[in-house]
């Protein structure tokens, strides 16, 4: 059964917090292969993680 985009983004998010089960990974891969919107959402969620990690460094430098 194909995942919806809503289910896909939820799994993408959970994949940042826990190890996904084999079946979840397969379903995710199948959906992402054909869905540009979800691929974008995935890379954007990863980017948000990266940006938040840099937040404390950057702002201090500019406020000095």
């Amino acid at each position, binding site marked *: 059964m194909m995942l919806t*985009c809503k*289910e896909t983004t939820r799994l993408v*998010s959970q994949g940042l*917090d826990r190890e996904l089960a084999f079946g979840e990974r397969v379903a995710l891969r199948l959906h992402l292969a054909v869905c540009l*919107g979800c691929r974008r959402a995935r890379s954007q969620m990863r*980017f948000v993680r990266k940006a*938040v990690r840099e937040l404390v460094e*950057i702002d*201090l430098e500019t*406020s000095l």
Partner: protein
Amino acid sequence: MPPPADFRAQIEALRPYLLRFASLQLRDAAAAEDAVQEALLAALAGEAGFAGRANLRTWLTGILKHKIVDTVRRQAREPALPPEAEEGPEELDALFARNGHWAERPAGWGDPDGALGQSQFFRALETCLERLPSRTAKVFMLREHLGLETPEICKELDITPTHCWVMLYRARMSLRECLQQTWFGK
């Protein structure tokens, strides 16, 4: 090992950094100040623990993280504030059509890493973080700023893993949407 006065001065020099670090999580200047003060006192008392380590800031930040988690735990035990309008799923639902597919496909962000070199981008990110409901923001920052694993977050805040994942999901989707509107879509 540096002499004590020198060590104290080096630690003091890092106070602004540590305050900023604590404020991002606690969103409360007084609480952040207290956590930093406790961390600095612990650092001075445990100077020996630093001997031989390469990076003073990393070491101090590690101590501060524990103090911040202590604060979050204390706050979680305090009598609950009037229940916050539980972060409504409406906003998220609006992103998807009835059938669970995108109502409007997310736009591409090109090469977003370029934004990481711009201080205005980080202002925009902070504004987006401030817009999150406070519980959602707390969970999100424990995860992404302090780097706690979800089981630890659940334990500290006494919530279920499922609830935790839902809040993290909402936070990420809201931030993504907010950055689209205030930065990448401009």
